[in-house]
Structure formats: C-alpha cells, structure tokens
C-alpha cells in the first residue's frame, strides 16, 4: 500500500473506528474482558481475585467434586421444568383471550403487563412476605378463611423451586403475553373467514389457523425462556438463600457463593466458564431452530 492509498484508507475508516472506540472499550471492560479473564483464571489458583500458580483443570475437578454443584445443576433443570409447566402456557392463553377482547382492551393489556415494571428485588421481597410461613403470613391468613393450611411455603424443599418460579412468572408473564398478542394480531382475517365459511368450529379455528401461526413465536420464546431460567439468581438468593438445605440453589447463585462468600474466585471462574458453555449450547440450539423457522415460512 503506497502513501496516498494508505491516506485514503485511513480517511475513509478512521472516523468510523474513532466513533466506535469508546463503545468497544465499554464492551471490553464489562463483557469480553471479564469473560477472558474468567477463562484464564479458571486454570489458576486464585489469590484474592488475582491469579496465583497454574493448576490446570484442578478448579474444574473441584467444581465437579462439589456435591452442591450437581445439586445446583439439577435444580436448574427443575427450575426449567417448572417454568415451562407454570410459565409457558399462561401467556399464550392470556394473549388469546386478550386478542378477542372488545371491552377495555387497553386497560387489561396494561394491567397484565403491570408487574413487569416493578423492580426485581421489590417483587421478590413482596412475594417473600406473601409466602410467609407463619400462621399470619398473607397467603396462610387468606387460606385460613377457607380452613386450609397453614403451609410452610418456601421452607418446604419440594415447594421452594415451584414457588420461586411462580414469582418469576408473576413478574414476567405479562411481557411474554404482549409478544404473543402482537403475533396474534398479525393473523390475517382472511384465514379466519375462510375457516368460518367452511363451517369450522371455534376449536377447529384455533387448532388449524391460530396455533400454526403462533408456532414460530412459540419456538423462539421456548428457547429464550430456557436461557433465561438458566440465569436465575436473585430469586433464590433473596427468597431462600438457596435453601432449605440447598434445595433451591441455582448455578449463578453458586458462582456468587464461591466468589463472594467462600472467597474462591478461581472456582467461581471455572463454574462461570461451565455455565457460559451451557448458555452457548442453548443459544446455538435457539439459532438453529429460528433459522429453520425462517427458511420454511
């Protein structure tokens, strides 16, 4: 490249790169840098948060040998299962009903979305109050009117995860509902009309017109929900501290516990890398599914 060509190349591109530079530095500082440092740290022992001696896969061995890790991993699968069971169908049903509404549609739409704007920590503490296990806890006191309970709620190891998922669903379902609602509004009325003229019953219209139209959105949100549930953290941290007896500890919470409560940054780094690999695999699956959806539709 001779001088004048180089000059032209710089003139054309330098401005663009200068504009990107501050943003790139922020991405390096907050995302890529910590990720790379984490990968590197995971192969060393840690002194404070810094690297000590190289230890190869020792941190990974320690993570796998930790019974709490397998607990946290299977808990994450439980979170996923319950969130699909409790949280996945509700937004679809709400969206279907909302889209058929003639009266006060905007009001209902806003009200169902409303929990989404309440800060996460406030939501979590609010539901911790509702799930208070004492006789006078809100839900117990309400159920007492019907002569039910009192229930131990979050203190019951079998209930902790489903109740945390319930809290997450309460907060998140409204947003998912709106996404489905938008998708439903894109169904052309021509299809419904054709189906009606053919004498299709309501169920047949849902079965053969509405649901097929929703499938691509359903697939996308299915994977996105799994990816999101894999990152559950605040809820068990605040509501149960992972308990009772680690019955609700999640993977991210275990990273937090290693790094900030047990002071083992290297072990936290190794688990961070493992979770990143899981998220990578899930995202890959997500892209596969959505791309295939695009090609066929």
């Amino acid at each position: 490249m001779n001088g004048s060509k180089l000059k032209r190349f710089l003139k054309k591109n330098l401005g663009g790169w200068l504009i990107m530079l501050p943003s790139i530095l922020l991405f390096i500082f907050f995302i890529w840098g910590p990720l790379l440092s984490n990968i590197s740290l995971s192969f060393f022992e840690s002194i404070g948060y810094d690297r000590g001696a190289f230890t190869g896969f020792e941190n990974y061995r320690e993570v796998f040998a930790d019974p709490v890790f397998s607990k946290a991993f299977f808990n994450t699968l439980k979170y996923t299962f319950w969130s699909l069971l409790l949280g996945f169908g509700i937004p679809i049903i709400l969206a279907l009903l909302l889209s058929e509404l003639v009266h006060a549609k905007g009001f209902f739409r806003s009200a169902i979305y409303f929990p989404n704007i309440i800060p996460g920590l406030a939501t979590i503490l609010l539901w911790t109050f509702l799930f208070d296990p004492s006789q006078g806890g809100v839900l117990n006191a309400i159920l007492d009117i019907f002569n039910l309970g009192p229930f131990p709620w979050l203190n019951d190891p079998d209930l902790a995860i489903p109740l945390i998922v319930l809290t997450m669903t309460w907060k998140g379902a409204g947003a998912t509902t709106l996404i489905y609602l938008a998708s439903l509004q894109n169904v052309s009325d021509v299809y419904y009309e054709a189906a009606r003229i053919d004498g299709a019953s309501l169920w047949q219209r849902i079965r053969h017109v509405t649901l097929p139209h929703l499938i691509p959105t359903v697939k996308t949100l299915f994977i996105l929900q799994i990816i999101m549930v894999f990152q559950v953290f605040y809820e068990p941290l605040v509501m149960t501290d992972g308990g009772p007896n680690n019955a609700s500890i999640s993977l991210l919470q275990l990273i937090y516990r290693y790094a900030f409560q047990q002071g083992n940054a290297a072990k936290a780094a190794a688990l961070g890398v493992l979770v990143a690999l899981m998220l990578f695999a899930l995202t890959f699956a997500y892209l596969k599914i959505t791309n295939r959806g695009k090609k066929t539709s």
Partner: protein
Amino acid sequence: MKRLLKKTQGLIVQFDYHKTRFKLLYIGILIFLSLALVVTIFPPVWLILSSFKSAREIYQVPFTLWPDSLDFSKVSDVWNMLDFSKYYVNSIIVTLGAVLTSIVFNGLLAYAISIIKPAGYKIVFALVMASLMIPPILNMGTLFNYIVKLNMINSLLPLALLFGANPFYFILFKTYFDSLPEALFEAARIDGANRLQVFTMIVLPLSKPILAVVSIFTLTAAWSDFLLPFLVLQSDSKQTVMVKIYQLYNDMGTSMGFGPDSLLMVIAFSIVPPVILFFIFQRHITSTVATTGIRE
C-alpha cells in the same frame, strides 16, 4: 354487548355472537381476565396498604386488607428516619447516567456499524452479537476485580457505564438505523458535515421513537439494578435504593425500630418511580414490548 355484534376481526366475530353459546363464552373470557387482573394487582395493593399497618397487624389472623388507620405521617417518619433522600439521589444519578451512556455508546456503535461501516466493522458486529449470550453477572468475580483495580469501589460511575455496553439496546438502535434512508446522510456529508455531526444533527433527530424506547427500558433497568451496585457500593452514603432495601431486609431482625411494616413502606418507595413512569408511557411501553420482545 352491542359491540360484540360489530366485531369483524379475530377468532370470534359478529356472526358467532348471534349465538348464546358465544355470548356466554365472552362473559367467561371477561371473568377469567378479571381474575388475572386480581392476581397481578393484588400483591402491590396489599404492599401499599400494609405498609400503613403496624407490625402486629400485618401478621394478624383473620386476614384484613385495609389498615386500621391510614396515618400518612408514617410515610415521612420512615423516610426521615432512614434519611432516604440520599439513596434516592444516588439511584437517580445512576439511572440518569445510565440513560445517557446507554443512548450515547450503544447509539454511536450502532450508527458506526449500521451507517458508516468502516473496514472490519463486521468483526465488531459479530462480537457484540456474541455478547448477547454472556450476561455480565456470569463473570461477576473478574468484573468486580476490574472495578477494584480501577479504584472505583463506592463509585456510581461503573454502574451507569454498564448500560453503555448492552447488546439488546444496540440491536434496537441498529435495526432502527438500518431503516433510515441512506441518501440523507450522503447529502449531509456532501454539505461538509463530519461523521459526528451527521449523528447529532441528522440521525438523532430522526430517531426519537427509538430514543424514547431505549430510554424507558434503561430507566427501569438501571433503577432496578441490584447485583453490581450491591457489590460495588459498600459505604452507606453511596448506596442506591435497591442496595439499601436489601441491607434493611437482611438486618430486619437485628435493628430496633425497623419492623416489617417499615420495610414494606420502603419497598413501596422503590416502586413509585417506575409506576409513575409506567402510567405516563404505558402505551409506548406495551407496544414496544410487543414488537421487540425486549422486556427491560
């Protein structure tokens, strides 16, 4: 019911509503949605009303929703006792800073990648998209270490800057900029504007809708942000509302004069700003969530 007979769009239309069966079904829909409404509205209503109760009244059997007395002096008592203004101010600083960095840095990056396209921009684009998979809290230990190394413990700056590296907001900007007509920028360039002037004088004024959307999302997300502020803000005078609430919750048993009723009131303080924001912008927020799929 007359409006049902005019419904021409959707799954069930006017012809169906001539049948009683469908009219009953519609009433069923209304009842079901009203129940959903109770589920979404009851917890916050309970929170607000119970924050006026005494600690004993909260746990009273049989259950009552309405407090014995609605004593509004309790609001200022709790606020003043905790000197809550300072936490509010800290949260407001972080939130406004977050909105500014979110717009400037995600916006500029999207502008460069969508419109300027300097050589090699595709690599940056791929890396930003890849970072969608990496929630920053996954690497919380090393990120915290960076902040310690830069001597930014107790600083509000990194908490605001965090929102300048957000792949979701970047995508919102990029998708929007992709739809702007290219001829406009070329014309401005011919008129002698430099790249940055094109951004401030042409792109930003054309981008009001997306600016509003990203601002609203950043406002609520930054106001609610908890983990990084909790790790970074260690001295009481620097804490944000969320960090303070978590600390109050953890100390509830031990500190005198601060019972569950006061905690409920503080939680109510924390939800007031987003609720006000929601009432002002609800149409904007609900329509954006529906089209972009991004929640906060």
